[in-house]
Protein backbone atom coordinates (compact mmCIF):
# COMPACT_ATOMS: atom_id res chain seq x y z
CA UNK A 1 0.00 0.00 0.00
CA UNK A 2 1.62 3.16 -1.27
CA UNK A 3 1.27 6.78 -0.19
CA UNK A 4 0.71 9.57 -2.72
CA UNK A 5 0.67 13.34 -2.47
CA UNK A 6 -1.40 14.60 -5.39
CA UNK A 7 -1.96 18.12 -6.65
CA UNK A 8 -5.12 19.31 -8.44
CA UNK A 9 -6.22 19.39 -11.20
CA UNK A 10 -5.70 15.60 -11.28
CA UNK A 11 -4.73 13.87 -14.50
CA UNK A 12 -6.19 10.56 -15.59
CA UNK A 13 -2.83 8.79 -15.08
CA UNK A 14 -2.65 10.18 -11.50
CA UNK A 15 -5.73 8.22 -10.55
CA UNK A 16 -5.49 5.16 -12.82
CA UNK A 17 -2.33 4.08 -10.96
CA UNK A 18 -3.98 4.12 -7.51
CA UNK A 19 -4.77 0.79 -5.81
CA UNK A 20 -7.13 -0.22 -3.02
CA UNK A 21 -5.67 0.64 0.38
CA UNK A 22 -3.32 3.36 -0.91
CA UNK A 23 -3.15 6.53 1.16
CA UNK A 24 -3.61 9.86 -0.61
CA UNK A 25 -3.16 13.50 0.42
CA UNK A 26 -4.57 16.23 -1.81
CA UNK A 27 -3.20 19.73 -2.28
CA UNK A 28 -4.97 22.30 -4.43
CA UNK A 29 -8.70 22.83 -4.90
CA UNK A 30 -11.62 20.64 -3.92
CA UNK A 31 -15.35 21.18 -4.49
CA UNK A 32 -18.04 20.11 -2.02
CA UNK A 33 -21.21 18.65 -3.53
CA UNK A 34 -24.08 16.78 -1.94
CA UNK A 35 -27.49 15.56 -3.15
CA UNK A 36 -28.85 18.84 -4.43
CA UNK A 37 -25.64 20.10 -6.08
CA UNK A 38 -25.50 16.76 -7.94
CA UNK A 39 -29.07 17.24 -9.16
CA UNK A 40 -28.18 20.73 -10.33
CA UNK A 41 -25.04 19.56 -12.13
CA UNK A 42 -27.24 17.15 -14.08
CA UNK A 43 -29.87 19.82 -14.78
CA UNK A 44 -27.22 22.17 -16.18
CA UNK A 45 -25.71 19.44 -18.36
CA UNK A 46 -29.13 18.45 -19.71
CA UNK A 47 -29.98 22.07 -20.55
CA UNK A 48 -26.53 22.55 -22.09
CA UNK A 49 -25.76 25.35 -19.63
CA UNK A 50 -22.26 26.02 -18.34
CA UNK A 51 -21.69 25.46 -14.61
CA UNK A 52 -19.96 28.29 -12.71
CA UNK A 53 -16.86 26.20 -11.86
CA UNK A 54 -14.18 24.40 -13.88
CA UNK A 55 -14.41 20.67 -13.12
CA UNK A 56 -11.48 19.57 -15.31
CA UNK A 57 -9.51 17.06 -13.20
CA UNK A 58 -11.66 17.99 -10.22
CA UNK A 59 -11.95 16.45 -6.77
CA UNK A 60 -15.53 16.29 -5.50
CA UNK A 61 -15.91 16.11 -1.73
CA UNK A 62 -19.20 14.71 -0.42
CA UNK A 63 -19.55 17.13 2.45
CA UNK A 64 -21.80 19.79 3.89
CA UNK A 65 -19.61 22.01 6.02
CA UNK A 66 -20.32 24.26 8.98
CA UNK A 67 -19.21 27.73 7.90
CA UNK A 68 -19.19 31.16 9.48
CA UNK A 69 -18.32 34.66 8.29
CA UNK A 70 -15.32 36.15 10.04
CA UNK A 71 -14.34 39.71 9.10
CA UNK A 72 -16.42 39.38 5.94
CA UNK A 73 -14.65 36.17 4.83
CA UNK A 74 -16.10 32.68 4.92
CA UNK A 75 -14.42 30.30 7.34
CA UNK A 76 -14.86 26.53 7.42
CA UNK A 77 -15.50 25.47 11.02
CA UNK A 78 -16.03 21.73 10.50
CA UNK A 79 -16.18 19.70 7.29
CA UNK A 80 -16.21 15.91 7.59
CA UNK A 81 -17.52 13.66 4.80
CA UNK A 82 -21.18 12.79 4.36
CA UNK A 83 -22.67 9.40 3.36
CA UNK A 84 -21.78 8.93 -0.30
CA UNK A 85 -24.43 6.33 -1.13
CA UNK A 86 -27.05 9.10 -1.28
CA UNK A 87 -25.31 10.24 -4.47
CA UNK A 88 -25.36 6.73 -6.03
CA UNK A 89 -28.12 7.54 -8.46
CA UNK A 90 -26.79 10.89 -9.70
CA UNK A 91 -23.08 10.07 -9.85
CA UNK A 92 -22.85 7.96 -13.05
CA UNK A 93 -24.56 10.81 -14.96
CA UNK A 94 -22.34 13.44 -13.35
CA UNK A 95 -19.17 11.49 -14.21
CA UNK A 96 -20.36 11.13 -17.78
CA UNK A 97 -20.96 14.87 -18.16
CA UNK A 98 -18.00 16.33 -16.22
CA UNK A 99 -14.26 15.49 -16.30
CA UNK A 100 -14.06 14.76 -12.55
CA UNK A 101 -11.16 12.54 -11.37
CA UNK A 102 -11.75 11.87 -7.69
CA UNK A 103 -14.65 11.50 -5.26
CA UNK A 104 -14.11 11.77 -1.51
CA UNK A 105 -16.75 10.63 0.94
CA UNK A 106 -17.63 7.92 3.38
CA UNK A 107 -19.34 4.54 3.29
CA UNK A 108 -18.63 3.76 -0.37
CA UNK A 109 -20.81 3.75 -3.47
CA UNK A 110 -22.74 1.34 -5.70
CA UNK A 111 -21.65 -1.11 -8.39
CA UNK A 112 -23.05 1.29 -11.04
CA UNK A 113 -20.80 4.05 -9.74
CA UNK A 114 -17.82 1.68 -9.67
CA UNK A 115 -18.42 0.85 -13.35
CA UNK A 116 -18.78 4.52 -14.29
CA UNK A 117 -15.53 5.26 -12.42
CA UNK A 118 -13.72 2.55 -14.34
CA UNK A 119 -15.06 3.86 -17.65
CA UNK A 120 -14.17 7.50 -17.02
CA UNK A 121 -10.98 7.08 -14.96
CA UNK A 122 -12.14 8.17 -11.50
CA UNK A 123 -11.25 6.94 -7.98
CA UNK A 124 -13.19 7.05 -4.73
CA UNK A 125 -11.40 7.77 -1.47
CA UNK A 126 -12.79 7.46 2.02
CA UNK A 127 -12.14 9.99 4.74
CA UNK A 128 -13.01 9.08 8.33
CA UNK A 129 -16.62 10.03 8.97
CA UNK A 130 -17.09 12.71 11.60
CA UNK A 131 -13.44 13.77 11.56
CA UNK A 132 -14.70 17.23 10.77
CA UNK A 133 -12.30 19.42 12.71
CA UNK A 134 -9.21 17.61 11.38
CA UNK A 135 -10.57 18.08 7.86
CA UNK A 136 -11.22 21.77 8.47
CA UNK A 137 -7.64 22.20 9.70
CA UNK A 138 -6.39 21.12 6.25
CA UNK A 139 -8.62 23.62 4.47
CA UNK A 140 -6.55 26.76 3.94
CA UNK A 141 -9.31 29.05 2.76
CA UNK A 142 -12.66 29.32 1.05
CA UNK A 143 -12.07 30.39 -2.54
CA UNK A 144 -15.75 30.84 -3.25
CA UNK A 145 -19.24 29.41 -3.05
CA UNK A 146 -21.84 28.79 -5.73
CA UNK A 147 -25.50 27.83 -5.50
CA UNK A 148 -25.87 29.17 -1.98
CA UNK A 149 -29.64 29.20 -2.60
CA UNK A 150 -29.50 25.43 -1.88
CA UNK A 151 -28.59 26.22 1.74
CA UNK A 152 -25.17 26.15 3.38
CA UNK A 153 -24.77 22.35 3.60
CA UNK A 154 -25.94 21.75 0.01
CA UNK A 155 -24.10 24.63 -1.68
CA UNK A 156 -21.03 24.08 -3.85
CA UNK A 157 -18.03 25.26 -1.82
CA UNK A 158 -14.72 25.85 -3.56
CA UNK A 159 -11.94 25.13 -1.07
CA UNK A 160 -8.20 25.47 -1.14
CA UNK A 161 -6.62 22.54 0.71
CA UNK A 162 -3.16 21.49 1.73
CA UNK A 163 -2.32 17.83 2.38
CA UNK A 164 -6.00 17.04 2.76
CA UNK A 165 -6.15 13.52 4.22
CA UNK A 166 -5.25 10.84 5.08
CA UNK A 167 -7.62 9.52 2.42
CA UNK A 168 -7.85 5.79 1.75
CA UNK A 169 -8.47 4.55 -1.79
CA UNK A 170 -11.47 2.26 -1.27
CA UNK A 171 -12.77 2.08 -4.89
CA UNK A 172 -10.18 2.23 -7.65
CA UNK A 173 -10.45 3.09 -11.36
CA UNK A 174 -9.99 -0.59 -12.31
CA UNK A 175 -13.32 -1.86 -11.04
CA UNK A 176 -12.21 -2.92 -7.53
CA UNK A 177 -14.03 -1.99 -4.34
CA UNK A 178 -12.98 -2.69 -0.74
CA UNK A 179 -16.66 -2.50 0.20
CA UNK A 180 -17.56 -5.27 -2.24
CA UNK A 181 -14.72 -7.49 -0.97
CA UNK A 182 -15.69 -6.93 2.66
CA UNK A 183 -19.40 -7.48 1.89
CA UNK A 184 -18.63 -10.96 0.52
CA UNK A 185 -16.56 -11.84 3.61
CA UNK A 186 -19.15 -10.43 5.98
CA UNK A 187 -21.90 -12.40 4.26
CA UNK A 188 -20.05 -15.63 5.05
CA UNK A 189 -19.40 -14.57 8.65
CA UNK A 190 -23.08 -13.66 9.03
CA UNK A 191 -24.20 -17.06 7.73
CA UNK A 192 -21.86 -18.80 10.19
CA UNK A 193 -22.97 -16.67 13.16
CA UNK A 194 -26.65 -17.22 12.36
CA UNK A 195 -26.21 -20.98 11.96
CA UNK A 196 -24.64 -21.12 15.43
CA UNK A 197 -27.55 -19.41 17.21
Amino acid at each position, binding site marked *: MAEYKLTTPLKEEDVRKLNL*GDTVYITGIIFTARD*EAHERLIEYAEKGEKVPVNLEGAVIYH*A*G*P*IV*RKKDGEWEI*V*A*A*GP*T*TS*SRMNKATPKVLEKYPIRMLIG*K*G*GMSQEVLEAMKKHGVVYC*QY*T*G*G*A*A*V*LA*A*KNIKRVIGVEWLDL*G*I*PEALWILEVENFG*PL*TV*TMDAKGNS*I*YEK*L*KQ*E*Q*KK*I*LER*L*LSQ*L
Partner: protein
Amino acid sequence: MERDKIEEVAIQLLRKASIFLPIDVKNALKKAYETETSETGRTVLKTILDNIAAAEQLNRPVCQDTGIVSFFVKGRAIDYKVIESALIKATIEATKSIPLRPNAVHPITRKNSGDNTGVRIPGISWLYKDTDYLEITATIKGAGSENMTALYMLPPGEGVKGLIRVVLESVVRAGGQPCPPVILNIGLGGTVDLTFKMAKLAMIRPLGVRHPEDDIAKLESKILDLVNQTNVGPMGLGGKTTALDVKIEYAYCHTASLPIAINFQCWADRRATARIHPDGSVEMID
Protein backbone atom coordinates in the same frame (compact mmCIF):
# COMPACT_ATOMS: atom_id res chain seq x y z
CA MET B 1 -39.15 28.13 36.79
CA GLU B 2 -37.44 31.03 35.10
CA ARG B 3 -37.66 30.95 31.34
CA ASP B 4 -34.32 32.70 30.76
CA LYS B 5 -32.53 30.26 33.04
CA ILE B 6 -33.85 27.29 31.06
CA GLU B 7 -32.81 28.90 27.79
CA GLU B 8 -29.32 29.64 29.09
CA VAL B 9 -28.87 26.07 30.37
CA ALA B 10 -30.13 24.61 27.08
CA ILE B 11 -27.63 26.68 25.09
CA GLN B 12 -24.85 25.43 27.39
CA LEU B 13 -26.03 21.87 26.88
CA LEU B 14 -26.00 22.21 23.09
CA ARG B 15 -22.51 23.72 23.20
CA LYS B 16 -21.25 20.93 25.45
CA ALA B 17 -22.94 18.18 23.43
CA SER B 18 -21.69 19.43 20.05
CA ILE B 19 -18.05 19.98 21.08
CA PHE B 20 -17.27 17.58 23.94
CA LEU B 21 -18.22 13.92 23.74
CA PRO B 22 -19.43 12.35 27.01
CA ILE B 23 -16.69 10.68 29.05
CA ASP B 24 -18.23 7.19 28.62
CA VAL B 25 -18.03 7.58 24.83
CA LYS B 26 -14.45 8.87 24.88
CA ASN B 27 -13.36 6.03 27.16
CA ALA B 28 -15.04 3.44 24.93
CA LEU B 29 -13.28 4.85 21.85
CA LYS B 30 -9.88 4.88 23.61
CA LYS B 31 -10.37 1.29 24.70
CA ALA B 32 -11.36 0.33 21.15
CA TYR B 33 -8.17 1.92 19.80
CA GLU B 34 -6.11 -0.09 22.29
CA THR B 35 -7.75 -3.40 21.46
CA GLU B 36 -8.38 -3.07 17.69
CA THR B 37 -6.11 -5.36 15.68
CA SER B 38 -6.96 -4.30 12.11
CA GLU B 39 -4.39 -1.81 10.83
CA THR B 40 -6.95 0.26 8.89
CA GLY B 41 -9.28 0.07 11.88
CA ARG B 42 -6.58 1.48 14.15
CA THR B 43 -5.87 4.32 11.70
CA VAL B 44 -9.58 5.20 11.64
CA LEU B 45 -9.85 5.10 15.45
CA LYS B 46 -6.71 7.23 15.77
CA THR B 47 -8.19 9.79 13.36
CA ILE B 48 -11.39 9.83 15.46
CA LEU B 49 -9.46 10.35 18.73
CA ASP B 50 -7.29 13.08 17.16
CA ASN B 51 -10.42 14.77 15.87
CA ILE B 52 -12.09 14.68 19.31
CA ALA B 53 -8.98 16.33 20.80
CA ALA B 54 -8.86 18.95 18.01
CA ALA B 55 -12.54 19.81 18.54
CA GLU B 56 -11.98 20.37 22.27
CA GLN B 57 -8.84 22.38 21.65
CA LEU B 58 -10.37 24.63 18.99
CA ASN B 59 -13.82 24.75 20.63
CA ARG B 60 -15.54 23.52 17.48
CA PRO B 61 -18.27 20.93 16.87
CA VAL B 62 -16.76 17.44 16.78
CA CYS B 63 -18.68 16.62 13.56
CA GLN B 64 -20.01 18.98 10.89
CA ASP B 65 -23.35 17.16 10.95
CA THR B 66 -24.65 18.74 14.11
CA GLY B 67 -27.84 16.89 13.39
CA ILE B 68 -31.38 17.46 14.48
CA VAL B 69 -31.70 18.77 18.01
CA SER B 70 -33.82 16.80 20.48
CA PHE B 71 -34.47 17.47 24.15
CA PHE B 72 -35.60 15.05 26.84
CA VAL B 73 -37.25 16.89 29.70
CA LYS B 74 -37.88 15.16 33.01
CA GLY B 75 -39.55 16.39 36.17
CA ARG B 76 -42.61 16.30 38.38
CA ALA B 77 -44.18 19.65 37.60
CA ILE B 78 -43.40 20.74 34.07
CA ASP B 79 -44.43 24.10 32.69
CA TYR B 80 -44.72 22.89 29.10
CA LYS B 81 -45.32 26.21 27.41
CA VAL B 82 -42.45 28.04 29.11
CA ILE B 83 -39.99 25.20 28.60
CA GLU B 84 -40.93 24.66 24.96
CA SER B 85 -40.43 28.32 24.10
CA ALA B 86 -37.08 28.39 25.98
CA LEU B 87 -35.81 25.28 24.16
CA ILE B 88 -36.80 26.62 20.72
CA LYS B 89 -35.09 29.94 21.47
CA ALA B 90 -32.00 28.10 22.78
CA THR B 91 -31.77 26.07 19.56
CA ILE B 92 -31.89 29.24 17.45
CA GLU B 93 -29.28 30.99 19.61
CA ALA B 94 -26.97 27.94 19.77
CA THR B 95 -27.14 27.57 15.97
CA LYS B 96 -25.78 31.10 15.64
CA SER B 97 -23.28 31.18 18.48
CA ILE B 98 -21.57 27.75 18.41
CA PRO B 99 -22.27 27.60 15.33
CA LEU B 100 -24.34 24.54 14.45
CA ARG B 101 -25.04 23.67 10.82
CA PRO B 102 -28.63 24.55 9.90
CA ASN B 103 -30.11 21.15 9.05
CA ALA B 104 -33.85 21.41 9.60
CA VAL B 105 -35.85 21.46 6.35
CA HIS B 106 -39.49 21.01 5.32
CA PRO B 107 -39.87 17.31 4.38
CA ILE B 108 -41.39 18.03 0.96
CA THR B 109 -40.18 21.44 -0.21
CA ARG B 110 -36.75 20.85 1.46
CA LYS B 111 -36.71 24.54 2.37
CA ASN B 112 -34.18 25.10 5.15
CA SER B 113 -35.41 27.22 8.06
CA GLY B 114 -31.82 28.32 8.63
CA ASP B 115 -31.97 28.03 12.42
CA ASN B 116 -32.53 24.32 13.15
CA THR B 117 -36.15 24.83 14.14
CA GLY B 118 -39.38 24.12 12.28
CA VAL B 119 -42.70 22.35 12.75
CA ARG B 120 -42.22 20.00 15.79
CA ILE B 121 -38.44 20.59 15.72
CA PRO B 122 -36.44 20.63 18.00
CA GLY B 123 -38.01 17.40 19.19
CA ILE B 124 -39.07 17.51 22.82
CA SER B 125 -39.86 14.38 24.83
CA TRP B 126 -41.69 15.05 28.08
CA LEU B 127 -40.88 12.40 30.66
CA TYR B 128 -42.21 12.13 34.17
CA LYS B 129 -39.64 11.87 36.94
CA ASP B 130 -40.63 12.22 40.58
CA THR B 131 -38.09 14.93 41.47
CA ASP B 132 -38.35 18.56 42.45
CA TYR B 133 -35.61 19.45 39.96
CA LEU B 134 -36.00 19.73 36.21
CA GLU B 135 -33.65 17.51 34.22
CA ILE B 136 -32.89 18.37 30.59
CA THR B 137 -30.89 16.19 28.22
CA ALA B 138 -29.90 17.71 24.88
CA THR B 139 -28.97 15.39 22.04
CA ILE B 140 -27.86 16.12 18.51
CA LYS B 141 -28.09 13.29 16.04
CA GLY B 142 -26.68 13.22 12.53
CA ALA B 143 -28.46 11.77 9.51
CA GLY B 144 -25.81 9.20 8.54
CA SER B 145 -26.68 6.96 11.45
CA GLU B 146 -30.37 7.94 11.74
CA ASN B 147 -30.92 6.97 8.08
CA MET B 148 -29.93 3.37 8.89
CA THR B 149 -32.85 2.96 11.35
CA ALA B 150 -34.82 -0.23 10.87
CA LEU B 151 -38.22 -1.41 12.07
CA TYR B 152 -39.13 -5.08 12.05
CA MET B 153 -42.46 -6.65 12.88
CA LEU B 154 -41.38 -10.25 13.39
CA PRO B 155 -43.63 -13.24 13.85
CA PRO B 156 -43.47 -13.74 17.65
CA GLY B 157 -42.27 -17.31 17.13
CA GLU B 158 -38.92 -15.99 15.89
CA GLY B 159 -38.14 -14.81 19.43
CA VAL B 160 -34.60 -13.99 20.57
CA LYS B 161 -33.04 -15.71 17.56
CA GLY B 162 -35.09 -13.49 15.28
CA LEU B 163 -34.03 -10.40 17.21
CA ILE B 164 -30.35 -11.31 16.93
CA ARG B 165 -30.74 -12.15 13.23
CA VAL B 166 -32.29 -8.81 12.29
CA VAL B 167 -29.73 -6.87 14.32
CA LEU B 168 -26.77 -8.64 12.69
CA GLU B 169 -28.29 -8.33 9.20
CA SER B 170 -28.95 -4.62 9.75
CA VAL B 171 -25.39 -4.02 10.93
CA VAL B 172 -23.86 -5.78 7.91
CA ARG B 173 -26.26 -4.07 5.49
CA ALA B 174 -25.45 -0.63 6.96
CA GLY B 175 -21.70 -1.28 6.71
CA GLY B 176 -19.67 1.92 7.04
CA GLN B 177 -22.61 4.25 6.39
CA PRO B 178 -23.65 4.95 10.02
CA CYS B 179 -20.01 5.83 10.96
CA PRO B 180 -18.98 2.81 13.03
CA PRO B 181 -18.04 2.07 15.70
CA VAL B 182 -21.75 2.52 16.33
CA ILE B 183 -23.96 2.23 19.36
CA LEU B 184 -27.09 0.16 18.74
CA ASN B 185 -30.13 1.46 20.58
CA ILE B 186 -32.95 -1.04 20.39
CA GLY B 187 -36.62 -0.77 21.25
CA LEU B 188 -38.28 -4.12 21.79
CA GLY B 189 -42.05 -4.66 22.01
CA GLY B 190 -44.71 -2.01 22.52
CA THR B 191 -46.81 -0.49 19.77
CA VAL B 192 -44.54 1.11 17.19
CA ASP B 193 -44.71 4.66 18.61
CA LEU B 194 -43.41 3.20 21.86
CA THR B 195 -40.94 0.90 20.10
CA PHE B 196 -39.15 3.89 18.58
CA LYS B 197 -39.48 5.95 21.75
CA MET B 198 -37.73 3.16 23.68
CA ALA B 199 -34.88 3.05 21.17
CA LYS B 200 -34.46 6.79 21.80
CA LEU B 201 -34.61 6.29 25.56
CA ALA B 202 -31.85 3.69 25.20
CA MET B 203 -29.89 6.38 23.34
CA ILE B 204 -29.71 8.64 26.40
CA ARG B 205 -28.49 5.82 28.65
CA PRO B 206 -24.67 6.05 29.01
CA LEU B 207 -22.48 3.39 27.43
CA GLY B 208 -21.59 0.46 29.67
CA VAL B 209 -24.71 0.85 31.81
CA ARG B 210 -26.67 -2.36 31.47
CA HIS B 211 -30.44 -2.79 31.60
CA PRO B 212 -31.56 -3.33 35.23
CA GLU B 213 -33.09 -6.72 34.42
CA ASP B 214 -30.51 -9.45 34.24
CA ASP B 215 -31.94 -11.28 31.22
CA ILE B 216 -32.00 -8.12 29.11
CA ALA B 217 -28.54 -7.10 30.36
CA LYS B 218 -27.15 -10.48 29.24
CA LEU B 219 -28.85 -10.15 25.88
CA GLU B 220 -27.26 -6.71 25.38
CA SER B 221 -23.79 -8.17 26.06
CA LYS B 222 -24.43 -11.18 23.84
CA ILE B 223 -25.57 -9.08 20.87
CA LEU B 224 -22.59 -6.72 21.34
CA ASP B 225 -20.22 -9.68 21.20
CA LEU B 226 -21.85 -11.05 18.02
CA VAL B 227 -21.95 -7.64 16.29
CA ASN B 228 -18.23 -7.28 16.89
CA GLN B 229 -17.59 -10.55 15.08
CA THR B 230 -19.09 -9.30 11.80
CA ASN B 231 -15.84 -7.59 10.65
CA VAL B 232 -17.67 -4.40 9.64
CA GLY B 233 -15.14 -2.54 11.78
CA PRO B 234 -14.32 1.17 12.18
CA MET B 235 -15.88 3.14 9.29
CA GLY B 236 -16.80 -0.20 7.68
CA LEU B 237 -13.23 -0.95 6.59
CA GLY B 238 -12.90 -4.16 8.63
CA GLY B 239 -11.92 -4.87 12.23
CA LYS B 240 -13.36 -6.05 15.49
CA THR B 241 -14.74 -2.72 16.70
CA THR B 242 -18.09 -2.51 14.96
CA ALA B 243 -20.11 -1.39 17.98
CA LEU B 244 -19.17 0.29 21.25
CA ASP B 245 -22.36 -0.87 22.95
CA VAL B 246 -25.82 -2.36 22.52
CA LYS B 247 -28.67 -1.05 24.69
CA ILE B 248 -32.18 -2.42 24.81
CA GLU B 249 -35.38 -1.01 26.31
CA TYR B 250 -38.52 -3.11 26.23
CA ALA B 251 -42.26 -2.95 26.75
CA TYR B 252 -45.01 -5.56 26.68
CA CYS B 253 -46.56 -6.00 23.27
CA HIS B 254 -49.53 -7.65 21.54
CA THR B 255 -49.51 -11.44 21.75
CA ALA B 256 -49.40 -11.58 17.94
CA SER B 257 -46.55 -9.04 17.55
CA LEU B 258 -42.82 -8.76 18.07
CA PRO B 259 -41.86 -5.18 17.12
CA ILE B 260 -38.14 -4.34 17.01
CA ALA B 261 -36.74 -0.86 16.33
CA ILE B 262 -33.02 -0.63 15.67
CA ASN B 263 -31.67 2.89 15.89
CA PHE B 264 -28.03 3.35 14.92
CA GLN B 265 -25.94 5.93 16.72
CA CYS B 266 -22.63 7.01 15.16
CA TRP B 267 -19.44 7.15 17.26
CA ALA B 268 -20.12 10.86 17.80
CA ASP B 269 -22.75 10.08 20.44
CA ARG B 270 -23.54 13.64 21.43
CA ARG B 271 -25.63 14.24 24.54
CA ALA B 272 -25.43 16.42 27.63
CA THR B 273 -27.60 16.62 30.72
CA ALA B 274 -28.23 19.26 33.38
CA ARG B 275 -30.48 19.58 36.41
CA ILE B 276 -32.07 22.86 37.39
CA HIS B 277 -32.96 22.87 41.08
CA PRO B 278 -35.85 24.84 42.63
CA ASP B 279 -33.36 27.30 44.19
CA GLY B 280 -32.11 28.09 40.67
CA SER B 281 -28.79 26.27 41.00
CA VAL B 282 -27.66 24.30 37.94
CA GLU B 283 -25.90 20.95 38.05
CA MET B 284 -24.19 19.68 34.88
CA ILE B 285 -24.21 15.87 34.70
CA ASP B 286 -21.53 14.14 32.65
